[in-house]
C-alpha cells in the first residue's frame, strides 16, 4: 500500500511536470503583444516609475521569457517550487495572497453543493434502480439527463430571471447586500449565505444528474448480483435487502468516486462564480484570464492539475480501502 502510494506520487509528479510544461508552452505561445501590452499598460499608469522598455525587460526577465521556453520553464518552476509565484497583474497582490483571499469562498460553496448533491442524488438513484423501468425510473432518468444537459449559463440566467427579477427573493449577483456593513456579525453571515443560494442551486442542479445516474447504474448492477438473489431467496425482507446488502455494496464505487472529487471542491466553479459575481477562485481566475494575468493563470492551471492528480490518487487508494477484495500492488 505504502509502496503503491509512493509510486503513484512519483508518477503524479512526473505527469505534473509535463502538464505544467505544456501550460507554460501554451502561455509563451500566446500571440505576441501579450506581455508588450502589459508593459505598455504598466508604463502608462499614473505614477509609473519605469518606462515601457524597462517594464518589458523587467517582465520578460521576471517570467523567464528571455531565456527561451525550456530555460524559462525551469526558472519559473524553480520559483514556483520555492513558493514564489509572483504578483498577480490583475489583482496587484501576490498570487498566493489572492488565492488565499478567494479559495475559501469557493470551498464553502463547493462543499455545500457537494453535501446537497449527495443528499439528493443518491436516494433518488437508489429509488430509480429499485423500480427499474417504472415511472420513477423514467422520471429520474429524464431529470438526470436534463440536469446533465443544462448549460450552466442558461440555468444561472434562468434562476436569476425567475428568483431575482420576477420574484425578487434574491439579488442578481454579488456576495453582500448594500447594508452589509450595518449588519451584526450573525446578520453578515446570513446575508452572504443568502447570496450563495442561487449559485448553490445552480451547482447542485448541474452536478446532480451525473451522480444520480452513477448511483442508479451501480445499484442496478448490485441488485442483479447473485448474493442479492440469495438474500431474497432466503426470505430477507426487501427493505433489508436494499438497505443492507445492496446499498453497502453500492457504496464501494460511490465512495471511490466521491472521494476522488473531494480535491475538486477547492477548484472553484468558473462559470457559476463569474455569473453570480461570487469572489471565489473561479471568478478571480476568469477575470485573470480575460485580462491576461499570466502569473495568476499559471498558478491556477497548475493548481487545477494538482487537484486532478490528487483526485485520481485518492480515488484509487479509496478503492483499495473500501473494497477488501482489491489489493494494490
Amino acid at each position, binding site marked *: 500500500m505504502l509502496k503503491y502510494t509512493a509510486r503513484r506520487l512519483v508518477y503524479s509528479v512526473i505527469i505534473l511536470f509535463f502538464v505544467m510544461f505544456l501550460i507554460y508552452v501554451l*502561455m509563451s505561445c500566446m500571440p505576441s503583444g501579450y506581455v508588450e501590452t502589459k508593459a505598455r499598460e504598466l508604463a502608462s499608469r499614473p505614477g509609473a516609475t519605469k518606462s515601457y522598455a524597462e517594464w518589458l525587460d523587467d517582465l520578460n526577465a521576471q517570467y523567464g521569457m528571455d531565456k527561451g521556453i525550456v530555460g524559462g520553464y525551469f526558472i519559473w518552476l524553480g520559483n514556483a517550487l520555492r513558493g514564489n509565484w509572483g504578483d498577480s497583474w490583475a489583482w496587484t497582490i501576490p498570487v498566493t495572497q489572492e488565492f488565499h483571499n478567494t479559495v475559501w469562498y469557493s470551498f464553502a460553496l463547493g462543499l455545500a453543493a457537494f453535501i446537497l448533491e449527495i443528499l439528493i442524488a443518491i436516494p433518488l438513484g437508489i429509488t430509480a434502480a429499485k423500480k427499474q423501468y417504472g415511472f420513477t425510473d423514467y422520471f429520474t432518468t429524464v431529470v438526470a*439527463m436534463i440536469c446533465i444537459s443544462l448549460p450552466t449559463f442558461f440555468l444561472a440566467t434562468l434562476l436569476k430571471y425567475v428568483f431575482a427579477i420576477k420574484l425578487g427573493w434574491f439579488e442578481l449577483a454579488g456576495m453582500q447586500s448594500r447594508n452589509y456593513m450595518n449588519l451584526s456579525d450573525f446578520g453578515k453571515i446570513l446575508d452572504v449565505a443568502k447570496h450563495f443560494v442561487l449559485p448553490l442551486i445552480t451547482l447542485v442542479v448541474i452536478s446532480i444528474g451525473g451522480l444520480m445516474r452513477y448511483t442508479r447504474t451501480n445499484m442496478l448492477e448490485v441488485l442483479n448480483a447473485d448474493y442479492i438473489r440469495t438474500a431474497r431467496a432466503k426470505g430477507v425482507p426487501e427493505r433489508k435487502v436494499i438497505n443492507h446488502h445492496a446499498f453497502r455494496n453500492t457504496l464501494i464505487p460511490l465512495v471511490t468516486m466521491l472521494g476522488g472529487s473531494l480535491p475538486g471542491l477547492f477548484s472553484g466553479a*468558473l462559470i457559476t462564480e463569474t455569473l453570480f459575481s461570487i469572489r471565489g477562485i473561479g471568478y478571480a481566475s476568469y477575470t485573470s484570464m480575460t485580462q491576461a494575468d499570466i502569473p495568476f493563470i499559471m498558478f491556477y492551471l497548475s493548481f487545477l492539475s494538482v487537484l486532478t492528480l490528487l483526485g485520481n490518487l485518492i480515488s484509487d487508494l479509496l478503492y483499495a480501502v473500501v473494497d477488501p477484495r482489491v489489493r494494490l500492488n
Partner: protein
Amino acid sequence: MSNQKTTSYSLNEVLKERATQEQHQDSQGEKTLDDLSRVKVLSPGRKVFKRFIRNRLAVFGSILLITMFVFSFLGPLFYPYGQKQIFYKYDKQHINYAMAKNNTAYNGFELDAGVKVESSVNNVMNSRIKKMIADGRESETVFGDTGAWQIDRLTDDIWQLSQVDAQEVCTYGDTTAEIGTYTMVGKKIEYKSVPVEGMEDAIKKAIADSPAGGTFELNGVTYTYTRGKAKSFPITASLQGLNYTGEALDEGFGEAVKAAAESGNGFEYGGVKYAMKKDGKAWKVYALGEAKPAKLYSCLTVDTISPDIKVTTEMRIAAMKAAAGSGEYTLDGKTCTIRNENGALIVSDAEGNELFELTPFSVRRYNGDDNMDYELKKAVADKIREMATAGQKNGSMTYPLPMQNENGEYAYDEEGKLRYADADMAISQRDTGEYVITCDQIIYVIDMYAPATSEHILGTDGDGFDVMSRIMYGGRVSLMVGFVVVFLETFLGVVMGGLAGYYGGWVDMLIMRLVDIFYCLPYLPIMIILGAAMDAVRMDTYLRLIIMMAALGIMGWASVARLVRGQILMLRDQEFMVATEATGIRVKDRIAHHLVPNIMPQLIVQATMGMGGVILMESTLSFLGLGVKHPLATWGTIINSVSSASAMAHYAFIWIPVGILICVTVIAFNFVGDGLRDAYDPKAKR
C-alpha cells in the same frame, strides 16, 4: 423458407414440392418445433435497430435530433431572412422639429470684388456692429493694419463697410515726439525732424546736472532725455494739446477736435469728415476722403415664399440696398419692390407677387435644413411674437404638417398633392434665447428588441437581427462545431489509441502517458485563455471558429484513445485476430478492417454522447464572448446578446427559447447515445 435443400434440380419438381409444402403448412396451421421459418434471423444491424426503436427515450431523442437538423439546416433555406440582416422600422418619436431664433450673426456680402477687406476688420464686424447698435451710433471709422474703414448703418439689420482714404491732420492730447539724439563724442544733436533752437546748450547743461537722465524745459516744452549706449542721449519732447502734422487749421476745428476727444467719435467740420483714432493717451485726427463700399453686413435670412423661387446673392444684395434706399430695385430687367412688415423685408415683383422675405427671425428645421413651408415659418414666428409679448416661455400651436404613412414617406392624395394632418407642436424657449419646436414624427430606426409578431416570429434582438433566423443559423454553427470537433477527436483518438493498443510496449507507454497528461489539462480554462488571446489580436471570426474547433478536438482525444486502447487490448488476443495474423494480413489492414469495425459500436456511442458535451462547451464559450464572435450566430452568442441584467429581464422571449434549444439538443444526443449503447450491448454497464 427457401433455405431447404432440394434433391432434384428440375424446376418443375422444385415448384411442385414447394407448393405441397405450403399447402401442408396451411392445412396444419401450425409450425413444427424445428421449422426454420420459426426462427427469424436478423442481421446484426437490424437487431441493434430493433433494440434501439424499442427504447422510447432513444426514439424520442432521435426525433428531436432530426427535427433540429431539419430546422437548422433546411430551415434557413425557406426562411426569408438571413442571419446578418438588420431590420429597420418607422417609429413615431417625439423629436425636436424646428428651431427658431433671432439671427444675431451678421454675414458679409461682397459688393465690390476689387476691395479686399482686411481679415482683422472683417472678423470683428459682428461685435463692432453689435456695439454700435448698443451705443446708438450710425457711423464709425475703424483702422485696420493697412487703412481706414468706415461702417455705416443702412437699416438696423443692414450695415455697410467701405474703404476710406484717411489723412492724418493733427494729434490731440498728451503725446511724445522724438526730437533727436545728442552724442557726447560729437557734442551735437542728430535731429529726427525740425531742429530746435537752443537745444544743444540746454541739453549740455542738463547732462552736467544729472548725467543719468532727466528732464529740462525749453520754450515752455518739456523734454526728456535718457542715457543710451556710447554716451548718447535720446531726447523726446512731451507735447500737449493740439499739434498739427501739416499746416494748421482754424480755431473752430480745434474746438471740434476737443469736443470729439470727449466722446471719441468722429465729427464733420467744414464739409470734411474726420475720424479720431486713439493712440496711447492722445488722439490722432484723420481727415476722411471718399468712401468705397466694400461689403454689406446683414443678419437677415432668406425665406422664399414658394419653394420654386431661387434667390441669388445678387438679388439679396440688391434687395438689401433697396431696403435702405428707395425701396425698389431693378435686376436683370425686373423691377421689384420691398415692403417692411414686422421687421421683415418682403420682396415682391412688378405684378405684386411676393417672391421672398428677408427676416432677422429665422425658423429652421432642428438640424439646420431649410425645408419648411413659408406659411409654417410665418405661423411659428407669429406665435413666438405673441408669446414674447405675453412674456410666456412655453406655448403650443397646431399646424398641419405633411402627413406620413406608416413607412415614414409623405402621403399623397389622388391628385398627387401632399396630404396634411394637424400636428401638435410645442414651443419652448431655452435659457439661451432660442425657441425649440417639438412634435411627433415618424422616423426610420433599427428595429431593436421588437416583440414577436407575424413578421418576426420571435422578434428581433439588440442589433436588429431577426431572432428566428439567428436561431436557425446558430443551430447550424453549433451542430457543425459539434460534428467537426467530435470527428477530429475520434480520429485522433482512434489513431493514437489504435497505435498504443496494437503495438503495446514503449509506444503504448508513451501514448498513455500523453493521455494522462491531456487528461490532467484543465479544459475550460485553457479554452477561455485561448479565446481571450484571440480577442487580443482581433482575429477574424471564421478563423477563430476554426481554431476553436481544432483546439476542442485536440483537447478531447485522450478519452477516445483510452477507450480504443482498452478495446483493442481485449480484442487483440481473440481468435479472429490470431487468424488474421496467421493468414498474413498486413498490419494496416488488420487494424483498419478487423479491429476498428469491432470497436465501432463504442466509438459511435462515445461520439454521440460527445456531441452534446461539445455543443455545451461551444455555447458556454460563445456566451462568455470568447467563442464564436458577433456577426456569426450561434446559440451561445444569441443568449450573450441579451445577457445584461436589463436586457435579460425584458427580452426573455429571446434567450429562453434559445436556452431550451441548447438543452433539448444536448438531451437528444444523450438519449440517442444511451439508446445506442443499450442497443449495441444490452448487458453493458451504463
